């Protein structure tokens, strides 16, 4: 690097000044961003802290800002009021099955759309894209009627079965497969005698693992958090998923907010843990999807 000869002392001073300003700006920027992060995270902190306090402590001035000692008591109260572990299991069960089935059907379908030519392909795909724009709300009443017609009211299958045909999922898969799998690869496999399904199973699936991961995470999160669907088709406490169970807790006349906060914290915890480990994947998957889309 060439040594620059300062033309005058003012120039030296201004350069030092600007470097200092740069540092100051950067420091302030960090401060601001961290402050925003803290404010954003505060409700979570509050949730976990409240889970360890009694109701009267939660509703007091000043509010408790550190862990209390009512955890065990709240836990007992929580279990008295709702079949929490049963509800948790329901959420897990539905989310896992939804994820596995969605991944299978969407990747298979996306594969079909991406790598093959067949009649009506463009028409069907166009139809798919259009429905992406229709708000989900439109279907809630017919959804209820169909579930009722099938006799699936109050059953978990009502929650994971309809979601398997996710237009978003197949769209994502198609984009990814189209840009990751080459026809040559497929032809080579065909020459080796592989059936089309074999190609899917042994070649495509391993190659689209990142997209599967992203879609899987998004599906899992979506299923775990879904509220309106379960609200409409689940009728008995034992069948509730976590969001409904929490709402039951909150709506009780003799509400115990210590138990409510504990239940909420426990309901959020699994996703939190997944997110801590997979945050990069989730965020990057989303961004990759949105850029490609």
């Amino acid at each position, binding site marked *: 690097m060439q040594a620059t000869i300062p033309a005058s002392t003012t120039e030296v001073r201004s350069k030092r000044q600007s470097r200092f300003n740069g540092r100051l700006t950067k420091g302030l920027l960090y401060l601001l961003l961290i402050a925003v992060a803290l404010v954003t995270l505060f409700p979570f902190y*509050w949730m976990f802290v409240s889970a360890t306090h009694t109701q009267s402590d939660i509703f007091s001035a000043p509010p408790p800002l550190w862990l209390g000692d009512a955890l065990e008591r709240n836990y007992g109260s929580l279990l008295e009021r709702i079949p929490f572990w049963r509800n948790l299991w329901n959420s897990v069960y539905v989310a896992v099955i939804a994820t596995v089935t969605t991944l299978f059907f*969407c990747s298979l379908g996306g594969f079909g759309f991406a790598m093959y030519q067949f009649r009506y392909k463009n028409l069907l795909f166009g139809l798919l894209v259009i429905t992406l724009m229709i708000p989900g709300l439109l*279907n809630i009443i017919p959804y209820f009627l169909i579930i009722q017609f099938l006799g699936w009211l109050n059953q978990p299958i009502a929650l994971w079965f309809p979601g398997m045909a996710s237009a978003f999922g197949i769209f994502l898969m198609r984009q990814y497969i189209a840009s990751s799998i080459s026809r040559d690869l497929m032809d080579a496999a065909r020459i080796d005698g592989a059936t089309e399904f074999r190609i899917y199973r042994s070649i495509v699936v391993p190659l689209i693992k990142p997209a599967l991961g992203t879609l899987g995470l998004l599906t899992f999160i979506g299923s775990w958090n879904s509220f309106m669907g379960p609200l409409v088709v689940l009728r008995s406490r034992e069948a509730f998923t976590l969001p409904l169970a929490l709402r039951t807790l909150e709506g009780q006349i003799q509400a115990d907010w210590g138990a409510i906060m504990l239940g909420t914290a426990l309901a959020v915890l699994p996703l939190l843990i997944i997110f801590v480990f997979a945050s990069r994947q989730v965020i990057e998957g989303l961004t990759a999807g949105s850029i490609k889309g």
Partner: protein
Amino acid sequence: MSSPQLPLSVRLDRFQRRFAPYLFVSPFFILFAIFGLFPTLFSIYLSFQAWNPVQGLGTMRFVGVENFAFLLEDPWFWQALGNTFWIAVVSGLPQHLVAIPLAFALVMGVRSLRHPLTAAYFLPFITSAVAVSIVFITIFGTHFGVLNQLIGVLANWPLTAWLFEGIRDQLPINWLGRAPYIKPAISILVFWQFFGFNVVLYSAALMTIPREYYEAAAVDGANLPQRFFYITLPLLRPMIFFAVTLTIIGNLQLFDQPFLLTGGTGGSGQAGLTVAMYLYRTGFEWLDMGTAAAMSWLLFLVIGTATFIHFKFFGRGGLETRE
């Protein structure tokens, strides 16, 4: 004379090659037809009927456009529409106005903490609306909610007291109980939950802008704000377009948060009633499914119109691709 029959294995092979794509795509489409297409068509049909589900499927009565006429003259529908728009704008606009500078700061300014910070901002988005709403019910509590307690402290602290002069006699604010405050409360919650998602989207877009552009501009003497406005923003347009579209479509269908914050009622004077909530109540609590279906189509029209206007204003810039 017909050509000799090909061996079975070859025929089978050709069959599976020809029909494989159909087989791959059909399970998806069958499901889609049942749970995606049919409901849509059925709800169109339903919107022209009067139907109380308690009395069985056979009691549907054709009423033409009466449901639509009723809704268009229904004060509660217009109020719900107004509420929905208010919340959509008040929570949606800041989402983007805040997310863009934040993303800019994250991508351009700080390099090391970018991921943890982004993750922190994104966390509310992946949390269930029920959990979040419950927590915020306590935060919005009138006398003991954390928010009001904070406001109380700030209103008495000499440095910040001046900010609160106007509303001093309204303190402590009854966020969830009084009509003027319920919409702001919902908006705060929605903003909190979704701004991180937009930060992620904008960060992704910002990272695709080559550094050379900025360096070239810096050489030409552009300072930071100028670089932001003349390089970043224009190049960000496609992403802004995309993200705003998502916000419009999402916010206009808001259900979970207002439903939980108002306990399913819509709040004092229906101030917190969104169209989605009103639809749910009309169909599932008041058992007027025809009207509810009609409402969902009116909502679709509204969303479609808003999206159309949005496309018109940002459309060309949004659909352009960058070299």
